[in-house]
């Protein structure tokens, strides 16, 4: 504050430019700001670059097909690894998590914006946000040591009645992909809710009042005014949640038991995602080439989450163009 009332540099030379000038302070400060921005760009490029540089040698040594062979033999005598199993478990667990989480999140967001009393909406929203504050390792502990015993009867029953579909086929493993999906769903709920809530809250009051004036019930008002307006936002929120679920490491690592037997497509089987595979074997990175195999898997995960997040952003951007 003192600078306003006191003497600034400009007092000496009143003819100077008003805002950003060529003077030293502005050059340094603006340079720092721009430099930080450029640094962030370089950081992301460096992530991609370093992962690529470590993954390529390992991929060159790979004796198996990276995309199609379902084996993972990584030791000092040679590398033979492929990712189809990891890709399947990663994608299916995240998709099932989304199927569970998105409808609930949308309803919760509707509750917070359209139903909850105005004074309580903020504290209620904060309660849901608290879910995001629980560290993921605690989700893992709770999921495997507490929640699992409650899901097991459901899984047994589903395997019995829906087993013929293959997707729900038995036998049921100890820690299943299905259980991990439910826990992932809980973990991504806050972010999907938060973004959906934001877009629902922006619904133009005229739309809502118009619907109500025409005699719509509250639900009809939501269906005809709030939901159509919010759909692109909800889609991008779901994509961001999907990105989180794809990359979640520790909770999945704790919950899903690794598959000793042959691979099964069933949700009730165990398995490993990219992230849990890397984390499970982090102590055995040892040589650069062995680590390279895992870094190659990490690179695929990076590309996957990059695509999903970029898509989410594009949808949000496009929505902005419409609403403003």
């Amino acid at each position, binding site marked *: 504050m003192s*600078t*306003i009332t006191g003497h*600034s540099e*400009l007092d000496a030379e*009143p003819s100077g430019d008003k805002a*950003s*000038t060529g*003077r030293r302070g*502005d050059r340094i*400060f*603006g340079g720092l*700001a*721009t430099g*930080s*921005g450029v640094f*962030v*760009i370089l*950081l*992301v490029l460096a*992530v991609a670059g*370093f*992962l690529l540089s*470590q993954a390529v040698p390992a991929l060159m040594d790979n004796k198996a097909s990276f995309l199609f062979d379902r084996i993972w033999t990584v030791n000092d005598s040679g590398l033979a690894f492929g990712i189809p199993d990891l890709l399947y478990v990663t994608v299916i667990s995240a998709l099932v998590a989304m199927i569970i989480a998105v409808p*609930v999140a949308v*309803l*919760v967001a*509707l509750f917070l914006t*359209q*139903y*909850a009393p105005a004074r309580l909406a903020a504290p209620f929203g*904060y309660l849901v946000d608290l*879910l995001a*504050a*629980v*560290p993921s*390792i*605690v*989700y893992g*502990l*709770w999921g495997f040591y507490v929640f699992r015993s409650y899901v097991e009867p459901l899984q047994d029953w589903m395997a019995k009645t829906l087993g013929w579909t293959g997707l729900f086929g038995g036998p049921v493993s100890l820690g299943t992909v299905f259980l991990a999906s439910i826990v992932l769903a809980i973990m991504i709920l806050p972010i999907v809710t938060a973004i959906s809530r934001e877009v629902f809250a922006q619904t133009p*009051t005229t739309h*809502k009042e118009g619907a*109500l004036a025409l005699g719509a*019930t*509250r639900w*009809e*008002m*939501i269906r005809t005014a709030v939901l159509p307006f919010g759909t692109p936002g909800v889609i991008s929120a779901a994509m961001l949640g999907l990105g989180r679920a*794809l*990359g979640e*490491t*520790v909770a999945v690592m704790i919950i899903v038991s690794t598959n000793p037997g042959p691979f099964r497509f069933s949700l009730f089987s165990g398995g490993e995602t990219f*992230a849990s595979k*890397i984390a499970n074997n982090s102590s055995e*990175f040892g040589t650069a080439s062995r*680590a390279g195999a895992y*870094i190659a898997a990490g690179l695929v995960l*990076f590309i996957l*989450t990059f695509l999903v997040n*970029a898509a989410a952003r594009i949808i949000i951007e496009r929505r902005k163009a419409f609403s403003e």
Partner: protein
Amino acid sequence: MSTLTQDTVSPAPASPIDKPSSMRVVKDRVATVAVYAAFVLALIPLVWILYTVIDRGANLLFDSTWWTNSQRGMIARREGGGAYHAIIGTLLQAAVTAIIAVPIGVFTAIYLVEYGRGKLARAVSFMVDILTGIPSIVAALFVYALWVTTFHFERVAFAVCLALVLLMIPVVVRSTEEMLKLVPNELREASYALGVPKWKTIFKIVLPTAFSGIVTGVLLGLARVMGETAPLLILGPYAKSINTDMFSGFMGALPTMINQERSEAYGPAVNRVWAAALTLILLVMLLNIAGRVIARTNKVSR
């Protein structure tokens, strides 16, 4: 808004035309029930997790040794020892992460709000979004590729901090950006009109006005970073004894302590798992709540 919508729920129609058909009323009721049920459903895991962790972990926390002793010399089958080494490790790593991430994040936000125009600004904004979505394990692998395979350094606490910096920067950028945007332009213009240079305007007017919001962002970022486990698994091997050296030796942290004790089947170790989990949740929630409380004291309101 709420009064407006509430009027429609308890309709007192003036004429029979206004009265919704019974089918429509039923649908409206069903939707209302579903919406309330979803909210309750969403809170169940939160309450359940907190209950579980407090129920199983609170015992050890009342013991002062938990806060003052390390696990040095302890074995899984024996009761005793504390989490001091892991708490210290978690706090130290969080502090170092913040020291690196906060200036970069705040300056990036300043660039985006005050300086950035055109393609470069859009590229920075896009990259911040990408950073937001980067899985923690990928950040950890990146630092591994840089720190261990390229430079042949040891796996130490500082490497963990580097990975955490990657995860913290976007949180700081986004929250600071939001806050800077809220600072009224009139303040800046008034300052310029008095002949104050742009950088001083930002430094003395804009940043102080947005200060509490920035602090909130930093605290929320720290809360997110402290619970991260993946970087610790890859870059920060667990040690049972106290180590405060960021650049040599293994350093314990709460998530790796949980992971370590989890691999033991004995009762005392299991107790320590839940106690460590409760300690971690307490730390994270404390930061979280502190952040929200400070946010309330904000000079610029939405």
